[in-house]
């Protein structure tokens, strides 16, 4: 009851303050929106947990309800300003995921994981490409295009629709304090799938350029770009991870601040040098955890202190940035595509579980963790829209509405999968077991 009163009070203050400034005259709303999100979204997450939904759903719903399309306490300008923190959030989430992965246990499963991802993506592509081809005239993208250009556009669209969200997957795991074989499987799967997606998307974009009469003979450029994207990101992250590990070992002070600074560097340098910040941050976390594991509790405490506010703001921002108008305009088409995608994921995981030797119990749950879509998908859709505005913009709108839907449903399903796998709170249990028993 006390918390409910505080929740109402903060929202009331937010409403009064927000509407005390005339529309169009607002400035410097970032700290206000951050403060509001930190307190009210935390409380919304807790309420959502009481009705057996993941906390991230509460954060998202808070953002949605207070965002520009509904209560408008967080204005469109504020939502855009809040997105400045997304880069930091994505890097931190991936770093935390890297810190949770034990490569020694994962190495023995690498072959079956590669097999699993390959079969899964193959089945999804085989299912989605013909479907998209068949319904293309009814999709609000470029219905009049035929022949090879249509096939190329379908290939790009299929890559976007197939894509997953390593960020949301890792964030739900981090927020649920989940740990165990299923969590590790999911992180490895979405990361491998993300790598494969970058390759598939780049090839599909080249196919589009060729089919629409664009540049030719850039195969070497593609390979170099792919190598830079993947290998460069991993190497850059590993280097920063090693530096961070040295800092933890020899200095070890103000770890929360240094951790956040590291994430800013991973995100900003990644953007500057065209690295994949998710891969770079994951690699940094892997190096710290598996090569230069720190002693003591400083890092764990820093992660707990730093990750929680960043996660809350990240999801509240995602909720406030959901474009409800796009969802309303082509919601039915998006809903049907979403159902088709979910079917393809389910079929793909079913076939992949049989062929790869992954634990059948976990294999049955994997599809629930692959529904979320977020930043990576949106980033790729923006690339298409910028290069091919004529059909890329409508495709981007469709993808945005799909993301909106998957943002709301995905975390709920994945959290449910983690509950069924018995891994929610596993990180805390592992930590408690690792602590020495009290003397006497």
């Amino acid at each position, binding site marked *: 009851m*006390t*918390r409910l*009163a*505080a929740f109402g*009070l*903060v929202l*009331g*203050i937010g409403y*009064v*303050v*927000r509407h*005390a*400034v005339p529309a169009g005259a*607002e*400035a*410097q*709303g*970032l*700290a*206000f*929106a*951050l*403060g*509001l*999100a*930190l*307190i009210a979204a*935390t409380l919304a997450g807790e309420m959502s947990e009481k009705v057996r939904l993941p906390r991230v759903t509460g954060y998202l719903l808070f953002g949605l309800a207070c965002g520009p399309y509904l209560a408008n306490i967080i204005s469109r300008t504020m939502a855009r300003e809040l997105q*400045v923190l997304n880069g930091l959030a994505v890097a931190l989430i991936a770093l935390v995921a890297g810190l949770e992965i034990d490569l020694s246990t994962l190495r023995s499963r690498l072959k079956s994981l590669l097999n699993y991802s390959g079969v899964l993506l193959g089945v999804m592509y085989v299912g989605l490409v013909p479907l998209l081809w068949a319904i293309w005239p009814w999709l609000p993208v470029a219905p009049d295009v035929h022949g090879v250009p249509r096939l190329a556009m379908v290939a790009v669209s299929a890559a976007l629709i197939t894509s997953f969200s390593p960020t949301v997957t890792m964030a739900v795991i981090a927020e649920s304090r989940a740990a165990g074989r299923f969590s590790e499987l999911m992180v490895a799967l979405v990361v491998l799938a993300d790598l494969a997606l970058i390759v598939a998307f780049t090839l599909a974009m080249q196919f589009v350029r060729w089919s629409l009469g664009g540049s030719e003979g850039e195969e070497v450029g593609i390979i170099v770009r792919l190598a830079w994207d993947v290998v460069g990101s991993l190497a850059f992250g590993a280097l920063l991870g090693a530096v961070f590990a040295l800092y933890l070992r020899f200095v070890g*002070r*103000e770890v*929360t*601040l240094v951790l956040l600074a590291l994430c800013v560097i991973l995100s900003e340098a990644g953007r500057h040098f065209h690295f994949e910040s998710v891969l770079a941050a994951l690699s940094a976390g892997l190096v710290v955890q598996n090569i230069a594991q720190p002693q003591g509790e400083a890092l764990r405490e820093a992660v*707990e*202190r730093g990750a*929680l*506010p960043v996660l*809350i703001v990240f999801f509240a921002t995602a909720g406030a940035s959901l474009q409800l108008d796009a969802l309303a305009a082509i919601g039915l088409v998006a809903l049907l595509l979403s159902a088709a995608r979910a079917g393809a994921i389910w079929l793909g995981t079913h076939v992949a579980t049989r062929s790869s030797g992954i634990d059948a119990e976990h294999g049955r749950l994997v599809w629930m963790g692959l529904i979320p879509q977020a930043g990576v998908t949106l980033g790729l859709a923006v690339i298409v829209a910028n290069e091919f505005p004529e059909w890329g913009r409508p495709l981007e709108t469709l993808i945005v509405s799909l993301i909106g839907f998957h943002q709301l449903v995905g975390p709920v399903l994945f959290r449910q999968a983690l509950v069924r796998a018995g891994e929610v709170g596993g990180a805390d249990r592992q930590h408690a077991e690792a602590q020495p028993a009290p003397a006497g």
Partner: protein
Amino acid sequence: MRPIPPEATEVGGSDPLDANLAPTLPPRLPWFAPLVRARVALGLAPLTAPAVIFVPVGYLLGPALLNVLSPAILSHLGPLVAVSLAALGVFVGLALDLRARDERPLLVAASVEAIATVGVVALATGFLFAQWRLELDLAAPFVAIALGVCASASSATAPAGDAPTHQRAAMRIADLDDVLPILLGGILLAAMQADDWGLALKLTGLTIVVGLGIALAGWLLFERAHEAGERGVFVLGALMLLGGTAAYLELSPLFIGLVAGLYWSYSPGGADQVIRTEVRRFQHPLVVLLLLATGASLSFSTLTAWLLVPYIAFRLAGKLLGGWLATKVAPGLTPTDLGAWLVPPGLLGLAFALNFAQLTSPATGAAVLSAVALGTLISEVAGAIVLPSPEGR
């Protein structure tokens, strides 16, 4: 230069900003102590006078020289600066616990001293503006009062365990003289946003109501958090909301922070203790950020030169007069005692000047900030010379 007492602090004696962070000095290397304090000031422990170091560093990094802190980055740092200012206001509010009987006369004395300083500086500079016929792009009374408010803050020091009573009282007066200027500054900034005094009072009232509302929400949540991480989120959120609301409404973050700090200080339970413990984790980075932003925002012009000398001279005169008047209210003090402790201006003057510069016209705001910053640096050095040495106590 006389050695600066190791317990010397920036914002206020035993107030929460520094009280729990005594610097660790190497026992056999006393000459090393100042360096240690400078190093640990980067967020690790308190510094005697961080403004002396970080304002010049900020200027070096700012647009005038290296441009590392470019105007675009400074604009991004704006919200964080507002949060830092709100945090300072909270600290002042938390330190203002007047439940002990002997504290009340000291607050009255501190307020008398502050009013005298504001009055002397504002009236004298206002008179000079009229004589010099300076062309300001802001109403001259606003600039004069802003300079007075900036001048009235003093940097107190924590009394040593064996410090005599009159010295403790002097330090406490220097500590408490921030309160009234923050209130005055809050009204001034509200008046600058409003077309008439009615609206100014309404905005001041809004600042108080919103500050109390956020403080009440924090009070409901801080002690009921399920875990340390969640408590940290609530405290951070409350500070962000305080600073963010002030920035959004273009009001004084120091004032809204003061209101919230006062509420937490007087409310039952341990909200004040929670705030002290949590904010200690990031207070020094915030202070450093504030000083760097101040340094980077400096811009020297002819107007700065016109403001600087009167600011320093009238501030000193105001402090001496204020100190003398305060001794009439708080018996047992001598003007000499008090005057020395009131000279170092501390962080709050800079904080208010930065806030003023952010919310007003760029030319006059920058000139006021630059004059106050230079005056602060000069007064800090002067204060270090005139402060009673440990041997002299």
